[in-house]
């Protein structure tokens, strides 16, 4: 375990140093994040020019937006820089080098790079969550439960993303498949109450976006049932095991770049 942590620290400090060559990019990213956030709050306000989402006040909707923004930041920091490299590894044949290292390959592929560019989104997102939760109608919410739920949400999205990225072992060029997934995550901008029943079904059971933003928000605002947490935990575990099993299965048919 200590060895793993040491390796992780090496990985992350080198990747941060490499990225910080483009310091001025940080200003562009920060402007982009604040613009994006302003844009999505504007979109939310348009819904509240009418009846709004049934059962959700504007401030409660803000909490969901904040969670979406924070997740987008976390994805930009950890998920997309790492998992987009799997595709490059397969294409260029450098996956062999990863497999030969005396450290678990899935771990290396999933955590090799830490990118600083998602930090503005993450910080702004947390700010919006705090503001929204503070101004929402007072109920018995639980910060602890919300954090646990968000953790399960993070595992769920990692599992889905890794499953899709693993298919590149067969199809090689899969950049666009992760784009399809990323596009579907946009549904997490609004609470599930915003959607018709058919959409809610899809976003709960097919592409479980509901567990990313709506479930943690409901627990934070004290309007969810703890049973949802159980569902999230089960799904997270399932996806984690599935991603592991699928990766091993994929490796069996991996034959290197010349195969």
């Amino acid at each position, binding site marked *: 375990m200590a060895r793993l942590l040491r390796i992780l620290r090496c990985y992350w400090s080198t990747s941060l140093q490499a990225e910080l060559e483009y310091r001025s*990019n940080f200003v*562009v990213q920060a*402007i*982009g994040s604040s*613009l*994006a956030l302003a*844009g999505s709050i*504007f*979109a939310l306000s*348009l*819904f509240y*020019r*009418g*009846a709004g*989402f*049934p059962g959700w006040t504007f401030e409660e909707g803000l909490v969901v937006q904040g969670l979406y923004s924070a997740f987008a930041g976390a994805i930009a920091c950890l998920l997309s820089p790492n998992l987009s490299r799997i595709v490059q590894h397969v294409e260029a044949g450098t996956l062999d080098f990863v497999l030969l290292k005396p450290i678990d390959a899935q771990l290396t592929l999933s955590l090799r790079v830490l990118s600083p560019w998602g930090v503005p989104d993450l910080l702004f997102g947390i700010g919006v969550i705090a503001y929204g939760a503070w101004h929402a109608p007072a109920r018995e919410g639980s910060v602890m439960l919300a954090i646990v739920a968000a953790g399960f949400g993070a595992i769920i999205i990692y599992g889905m993303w890794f499953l899709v990225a693993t298919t590149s072992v067969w*199809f090689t*060029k899969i950049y*666009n*498949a992760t*784009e*399809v997934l*990323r*596009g*579907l995550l*946009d*549904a997490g901008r*609004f609470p599930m109450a*915003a*959607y*018709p029943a058919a*959409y809610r079904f899809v976003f709960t059971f097919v592409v479980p976006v509901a567990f990313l933003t709506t479930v943690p928000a409901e627990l934070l605002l004290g309007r969810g049932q703890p049973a949802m947490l159980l569902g999230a935990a089960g799904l997270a575990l399932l996806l984690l095991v599935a991603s592991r099993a699928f990766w091993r299965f994929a490796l069996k048919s991996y034959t290197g770049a010349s195969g």
Partner: protein
Amino acid sequence: MNAALRRMSGLLSAYYAYMTAYRAELILWALANSLPFILMGAWYQAAENGGYGFSGVEVARYFLAVFVVRQLTVVWVIWEFDQDVQRGRLSQYLLQPVDPAWRYIAAHLSERVARLPFSALIIALFFLLFPPARFVPHASDLLLALVFASLAFALRFAMQYTLALFALWTERASSLEGLMFILYLVLSGAIAPLEVFPDALRAAVLWTPFPYFIWVPARLLSGGVDVDLVQAALVCLGWITLFVVLNRVVWRRGLKRHSAMGA
């Protein structure tokens, strides 16, 4: 003139062949554009809850039209140009007796044709899943929508290609597009039809290029009557002229400054 036409048709057929080689990628790109369908769900529900003065089915048609217009007006020249500058391909293009702009235009136009069957498939699937939204636009609406979608493509291409030229100075212009894309999403009608904007804001936005990318053609396609066509055409053409002129000025300056990678 004849020689120019022959060149262009050569470029078009070459790029069409090239695009069809990436069929699987094209269908994934079409699927990746799920945002109109997500927002369709949210706005459908909002319209059914009342307070907006339009029905859920009208919303569904509008966002389907948004999907179609986006399929017709996708532009990615800035990423292509970035790569061409960084990898030195631009230097080769410059040696040939065709302005590189025509290459990018040919690639974009032929991709549209290659993508068409997949878009049609998605539309058919949508009508199958949600029969109430089925509709056939009037021939005149369809024609007008196509004209304005073409203008939208021209404007978006001129705007993005002008930004792309800054790669001649910085080698990484695509981060500018990241900022522009946010404005594009919010103000173009992609996240909400402009009818729900506050009146003063909508009036102001109509002077910017953004609503002409999506809202105007999508409204026309879904049978909207509340578009001032003369104003729309004039503002849109004005912006296109401005960006084309700007583009040529920046192109001349940039070329003087451009030195290939490794030089």
